[in-house]
């Protein structure tokens, strides 16, 4: 035991002596959380659009004023003819063009109907669709204004209540995701690299012939990183509470315990990666190439899992980050406890044990 | 001194912050000499050598190697020297032949030259069966032999060897020194660092570095007489103790 503690101490010295790496390990997650917390949002705001107004009359002017007053759009340009649309789209300067037909007001008065064409650059389908929806709703509220003197019978109104995030802040959606991704990648990468590094430098063999058990060697290497990751997690949680005003509706203690569970999960994944890779290079490429995109795309961090094709929904089950994001949102935003989150927690525990068992097995095979 | 001096070192110093790794050393090495550069680990041998081969800038002082200044003409120095480090820096994931071709190539040898030279080398070291095996799979002693030969590819005047025989058995070490002598007989100057004191006996002259300074410089015979001892090992121990 004494030897074991001595070994852990050595690992700590190892990490803390390297000021540059330390700075990287603590500094980078903070910078990333700050950056992404503020910058990543899937709201659509300030979209650059252009107007092609064939009428230039009272009604179109009013509509254009309404559009330019909205926070969703900023009018970049007024086009003169249809030919300019293609050029503007190709340059990527604008995302949409509102095309008002000729004699807009006149048609509205005489035929009770006038038309606006909403042309969108749909290479980005999400933005295109959203622009189209937003414009429609601005136009229909203008229409209501026009018709305000006429009462419409048989109206069904809809009262909507938004739960857990009434202001529809996308920060609530992204901060848990950012936290998860950073913890996952940093923890898995750190352990897999530090263990393969010993292998590559040949020092692993020295450790293995020492009286320390292989199990102790691995645990000894991982303990300092658990501490590092926990510190990182605490900093990230503090940032999300105090900088991004994320609520913690649920139990702070449970939040801490679940976070440690997730860190253990990521670290054991890192150990598993290190058992299958012979060099640092392989370990890094597996943990970076293998984890980065799947974790970003299949965890529900940005893209809703329920919208994915069924096979991908199935695959997303094996991404630990998916379950941790559900847990984080549950505790922080919904304020639920283990009663609701036992399933996700069990899955993470199961995965962690699985990774450890598999690493032990691989490890034994190699030693024999 | 045979044919004059080929390395001139004057007041050479290297500091890292507050720490002086090499402290104001001066010496000369003659052409064709086997010059032993001795010292304990951390005495500053490797740092001094790195300045001479042009990959570390001296903090002060000057040095000329093969007639070129190591500060201002480092790249010219590099054309005239061969270097083999304690880490026998060959690529483990290339074969012997590929390593030879690569280093020949970056020294700017002609393609035909590389071909004949590598064949000669393989003949000389009797590595026909191993020539197309990965270096990583060879025993340490062979790697060192190959690394030494690779450092000779471009026919340098001086060969710098940084602890070339670390980690191998006495027989392999002896064989390695035979190779060194063969090159010395061809007129090449050998500059070798080591901490095996028995190897010091093989050198024409040795310098002993302690804590960044050269404490002694002479032939092994003279040094043993001066300190009235039997072996270079005892010379070294005496010197080290005096300093402490």
């Amino acid at each position, binding site marked *: 035991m004494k030897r074991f503690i001595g070994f852990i101490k050595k690992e700590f010295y190892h990490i803390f002596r390297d000021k540059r*790496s330390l700075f990287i390990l603590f500094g*980078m997650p903070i910078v990333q959380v700050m*950056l992404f917390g*503020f*910058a990543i949002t*899937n*709201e*659509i705001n300030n*979209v650059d659009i252009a107007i092609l107004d064939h009428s230039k009359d009272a009604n179109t002017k009013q509509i254009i004023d309404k559009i330019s007053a909205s926070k969703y759009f900023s009018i970049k340009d007024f086009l003169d003819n249809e030919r300019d649309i293609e050029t503007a789209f190709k340059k990527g300067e604008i995302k949409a063009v509102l095309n008002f037909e000729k004699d807009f007001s006149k048609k509205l*008065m005489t035929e*009770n109907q006038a*038309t606006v064409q*909403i042309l*969108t650059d749909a290479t980005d*389908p*999400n933005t*295109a669709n959203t622009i189209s929806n937003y414009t429609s709703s601005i136009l229909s509220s*203008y229409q209501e204004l026009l018709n305000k003197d*006429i009462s419409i*019978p*048989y*109206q*069904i*109104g*809809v*009262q909507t209540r*938004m739960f*857990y*995030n*009434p202001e*529809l*802040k*996308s920060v609530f*959606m992204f901060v848990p995701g950012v936290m998860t991704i950073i913890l996952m990648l940093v923890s898995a*990468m750190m352990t897999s*690299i530090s263990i393969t590094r010993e292998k590559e430098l040949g020092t692993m063999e020295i450790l293995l012939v020492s009286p320390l058990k292989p199990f102790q060697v691995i645990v000894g290497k991982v303990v300092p990183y658990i501490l590092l990751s926990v510190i990182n997690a605490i900093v990230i949680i503090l940032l999300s509470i105090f900088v991004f005003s994320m609520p913690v509706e649920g139990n702070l203690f449970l939040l801490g315990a679940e976070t440690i569970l997730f860190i253990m999960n990521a670290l054991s994944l890192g150990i598993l990666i290190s058992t299958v890779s012979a*060099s640092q*290079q*392989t370990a*890094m*490429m597996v943990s*970076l*190439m*293998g984890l*980065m*995109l799947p974790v970003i795309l299949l965890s529900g961090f940005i*893209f809703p899992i*329920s*919208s994915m094709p069924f096979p*991908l929904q199935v695959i*997303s089950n094996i991404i630990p980050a998916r379950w941790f994001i*559900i847990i984080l949102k549950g505790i922080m935003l919904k304020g639920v406890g283990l009663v609701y989150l036992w399933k996700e927690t069990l899955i993470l525990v199961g995965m962690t044990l699985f990774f450890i068992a598999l690493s032990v097995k691989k490890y034994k095979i190699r030693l024999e | 001194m045979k044919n004059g001096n080929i390395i001139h070192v004057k007041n050479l110093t290297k500091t890292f912050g507050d720490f002086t790794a090499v402290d104001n050393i001066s010496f000369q090495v003659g052409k064709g000499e086997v010059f032993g550069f001795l010292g304990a680990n951390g005495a500053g041998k490797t740092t001094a050598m790195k300045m001479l081969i*042009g*990959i570390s*800038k001296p903090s002060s002082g000057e040095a000329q190697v093969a007639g070129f200044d190591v500060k201002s003409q480092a790249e010219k120095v*590099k054309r005239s020297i061969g270097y083999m480090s304690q880490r026998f*820096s060959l690529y483990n994931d290339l074969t012997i032949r590929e390593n030879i071709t*690569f280093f020949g190539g970056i*020294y*700017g040898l002609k393609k035909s030259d590389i071909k004949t030279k590598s064949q000669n080398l393989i003949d000389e070291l009797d590595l026909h069966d191993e020539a197309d095996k990965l270096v990583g799979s060879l025993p340490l002693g062979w790697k060192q032999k190959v690394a030494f030969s690779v450092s000779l590819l471009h026919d340098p005047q001086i060969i710098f060897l940084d602890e070339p025989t670390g980690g191998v058995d006495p027989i392999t070490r002896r064989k390695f020194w035979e190779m060194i002598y063969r090159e010395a007989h061809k007129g090449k100057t050998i500059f070798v660092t080591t901490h095996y004191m028995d190897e010091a006996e093989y050198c024409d002259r040795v310098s002993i570095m302690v804590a960044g300074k050269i404490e002694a410089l002479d032939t092994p015979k003279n040094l043993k007489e001066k300190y009235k001892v039997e072996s270079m090992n005892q010379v070294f121990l005496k010197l080290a103790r005096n300093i402490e």
Partner: protein
Amino acid sequence: MILELKMNTIRYIIQKEFKQIFRNKAMLPIIFVLPLIQLAILANAATFEVKNIKFGYIDNDKTSLSRELIEKFNASTYFNVLTDFPSHIIADADMLEGQVDVVLEIPLHFERNLLKEKKTDLSVRINAIDGAAAGVENVYVNRIVQQFNQKVRTELLLVGENINKLQNIATIPSFWYNETLNYKTFMVPGILVLLVTMITLFLSGMNIVREKEIGTLEQINVTPIKKYQFIIGKLFPFLILGLVLLTVGLIIAKLLFDIPIVGSILLMYGYSIIYILVILGMGLFISNFTDTQQQAMFIAWFFMVIFILMSGLFTPIESMPNWAQVLTEFNPIKYYVQVMRMVMLKGAGFSDIYQQLLKTLAYALIMNALAVYSYKKVT
């Protein structure tokens, strides 16, 4: 003659790098197979489309009209009608558990009120943790209710009532370049860009520092090789590798996803070469600047995550705060994603991507100058 000699030196480095890449059996699948599998699979995941919405309802009215309304939701492709909740207490509990995302509550006397008072209200609860999805869900709910409303109204109204006097502004949406709003058209080129970038950045980032760690760099430093020769020799193999990956990726995009390639392939490759040089220069700079592969990879990872998430690929740049938008000016992935989409999908020509091209070129020059500068043969 001298020039030839210089070229020769570079050639030997290139040869050596290629041999090392292809000899590493553990790395080959990670470099060539893993990214392409990810492209084929993950491109399907990246969709903001909101569908299969978990929908439940509380029908307090239980009339033919309320059932008709629920039927409308049932018929919609967006909603999976899951549960008929007896009360909103149970509905709320289910929402807390994540079983349901949208709950429609039809009040008692819904039908009677509509017919008698000519006005009635529905209430809808939406799980809004994903704010954007919640907004879309709200739009869908309103759309279905409005259509239902209109249908009911036309059925109930007598001919000639004032409804015809309403002034109506019709909107005709028209989606260019991607009429069906296919997300894959949008995401496949982008994800391909990410994969090419990741592979080239990570490999080049590890490359020199790895030689430093093994000790072979010192051996190279004692040779008279020129700094630029060394860097060019290191750049070239990875450039080829990146282009091969790009090519296979484009073939997958075309065959598997049927992504249109409208623009000039030559222009695309021309830009890609400059872009990959930016990334490689950056990788080699990181590699020169660090002492261990571990450090190099952390730094490369740090920038990679920032570049990916702030590239406009997954979330729009225009919605970022101004300072963040300024930062994205330094994000090479942003330009590459833009250019690939513009050229591939819209058929943009040289004059359209001129600006991005210039910026990328300047970036490439700066990064590679830094790479050469930071490679220190003498310490």
